[in-house]
């Protein structure tokens, strides 16, 4: 047991902190869910990438620093403590890139990753469909074989970032009529500006187009944009979504910084006793999540594969995040109703947590059945 970082990791921390001190914009960027803010965040990705801070956990050849998970956690702590901007490249960096590292070809990595690292290409995810929410295997969008590639048709929805992004990735049904619904799916990347793609932005609760519907009408995708074997998309995607729910979707640094901001707000407001316990719980929860993550990372570093325990993680952070923001709004009193406080947008964002990346109902079923061994089958 060793709960301290190595001197090398602390040196890395110091380097990151110094860089962030010098570069983090003094004023928050406009919301990344607006056209103007999207562009500003894309520029910020380029600024990060120029000094190799955009994808620290990637190999150096693709613009990273080969940071292991502990060093990545250190980076995230510093990043959020510095109040640095949200990451517009998050979908690509944390969902698509791990898949490419595990299932992609050399050629795909060389072609896709560098522009992802610089923010030149921003990726949207295209998992969901109108009738397939929690029941992801029931996808109906099609990939039909054509000369040298595939023709994509159908409808995707809740495609985050897609209103302003460049490319997207998702699953398509390439073999209709398979015995089980999660067979015969293929994992593809496609251009959001390709002929046949219509992007309809969807406003989030606060009206900002944080996601979009995608209407696909015989969109031609070359074979080089298939990831892994055709028909094996489900298995490939599952390794990505396990990752999504696991270590890298919500870094502890994010919540540590948010809890510190909350405690500062509470102190500035005169340490309202009626809210003290909730502020304490926010601080405790951030620490618990940090330590839980260290433990998971340690197991991962020791060669264990993280399985259904990522469902514990998902339930915890998503409900924690809402509770923290509700406490902040309550501390603001009547002002908390406003749409433009320093907490408003992240409050709205937090509300989606228990729904996306697998609803918390599904996660609790997984915890009960796979971690506790309760009988399956009835819900």
């Amino acid at each position, binding site marked *: 047991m060793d709960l301290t970082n190595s001197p090398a990791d602390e040196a890395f921390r110091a380097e990151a902190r110094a860089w962030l001190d010098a570069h983090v914009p003094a004023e928050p960027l406009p919301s990344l869910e607006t056209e103007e803010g999207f562009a500003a965040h894309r520029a910020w990705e380029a600024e990060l990438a120029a000094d190799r801070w955009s994808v620290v956990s990637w190999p150096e050849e693709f613009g990273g620093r080969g940071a292991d998970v502990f060093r990545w956690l250190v980076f995230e702590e510093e990043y959020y403590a510095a109040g640095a901007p949200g990451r517009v490249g998050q979908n690509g960096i944390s969902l698509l890139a791990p898949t490419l590292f595990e299932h992609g070809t050399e050629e795909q990595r060389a072609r896709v990753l560098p522009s992802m690292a610089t923010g030149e290409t921003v990726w949207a995810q295209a998992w969901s469909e109108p009738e397939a929410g929690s029941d992801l295997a029931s996808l109906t969008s099609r990939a039909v074989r054509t000369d040298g590639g595939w023709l994509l048709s159908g409808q995707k*929805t809740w495609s985050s970032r897609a209103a302003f992004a460049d490319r997207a990735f998702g699953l398509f049904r390439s073999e209709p009529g398979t015995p089980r619904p999660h067979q015969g799916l293929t994992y593809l990347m496609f251009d959001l500006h390709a002929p046949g793609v219509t992007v309809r932005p969807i406003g989030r609760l606060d009206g900002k187009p944080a996601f979009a519907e995608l209407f696909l009408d015989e969109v031609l995708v070359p074979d080089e944009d298939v990831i892994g074997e055709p028909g094996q998309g489900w298995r490939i995607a599952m390794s990505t979504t396990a990752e999504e729910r696991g270590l890298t979707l919500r870094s502890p640094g994010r919540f540590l910084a948010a809890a510190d901001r909350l405690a500062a707000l509470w102190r500035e407001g005169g340490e309202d006793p009626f809210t003290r316990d909730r502020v304490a719980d926010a601080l405790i929860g951030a620490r618990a999540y940090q330590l839980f993550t260290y433990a998971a990372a340690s197991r991962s570093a020791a060669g264990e594969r993280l399985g259904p325990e990522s469902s514990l993680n998902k339930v915890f952070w998503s409900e924690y995040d809402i509770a923290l923001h509700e406490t902040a709004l309550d501390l603001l009193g009547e002002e908390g*109703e406003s749409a433009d406080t320093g907490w408003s947008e992240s409050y709205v964002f937090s509300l989606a947590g228990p729904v996306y990346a697998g609803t918390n109902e599904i996660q609790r079923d997984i915890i009960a059945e796979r971690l506790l061994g309760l009988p399956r089958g009835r819900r």
Partner: protein
Amino acid sequence: MRFLLDTEQRAFAGSLDAMLTAADTPSVVRDWSRGDHAKGRALWSRVAGAGVFALAVPEEYEGVGRLPLDLAVAFVELGRHAVPGPLVETVTAAALLSELGDPAPAKRLLPALASGESMATVARRGSYALDGDAVAVRLSLTDGEVRLSPGHGPVRASLDPARRRTHLHPGGELLATAPPFATALLWARLATAAQALGVGLALLDRTVAYVRQRTQFGVPIGSFQAVKHRLADAKVALEFARPLVLGAAATLDPADVAAAKVTACEAAYTTARTALQLHGAIGYTAEYDLSLWLTKARALRTAWGTPGECRAVVVSG
């Protein structure tokens, strides 16, 4: 003892409900949120025509006498249909004007509020006045006086886009000194509580309807026990908030009113969280009508008394 709405009160609620159902309130709300008040004013006239605002106005000022219970019944329906505008504020202004020492301002202003000819807003100095940009009567309060504010500042966006809050310009005509703020606050909280209860009831109804038809894994999601139990909890919260609201209207006791305010608002917000969770992503979009109620449930929690302020009244009551 007969703690039940009478037949007329139920019929009143039913007719308001029918009128508002036919009025396509979601499109009214969306226009209002953009600052386009035309449809909202038309709807306001119909609400006033049904006699809602007259319920807060004494007969001598062309109201029907102050009937808080009937008013609460009406505000449940207004909340249920997400009707936009300074509903609570108009009632609050009426309560305030009714009890000034000098009857002149009431005589001048109340008939138009009762008839729906004008809307009012009201705010303490430093607080926001809802829809200051839409109303003719802007009451600006300090501890010692109430004035007719000469104008308003820019709209400050709320998490509920239909709530367009403005600061009121200082100065303006002095209507009275020592305004009866405590009375006004009672009416404001009661109306907000009733409105929030209506918001919560609408959220529950819409979510129940949704989970009955939305299928996942081959069955309606409303057949999952986790879904059922969350909705059952929302139902319990709302059904125990309801008698508090009606009871507060019957007694106008400050502790009862504060209890109704905090409980109805918490029940509505709890139901909003449940509604959002059970709708999934569709519920998280601005274009789906559910959002009109979701965002209002959040905003009403702190309007006219935060949960903490209301609980403080309860423990001191």
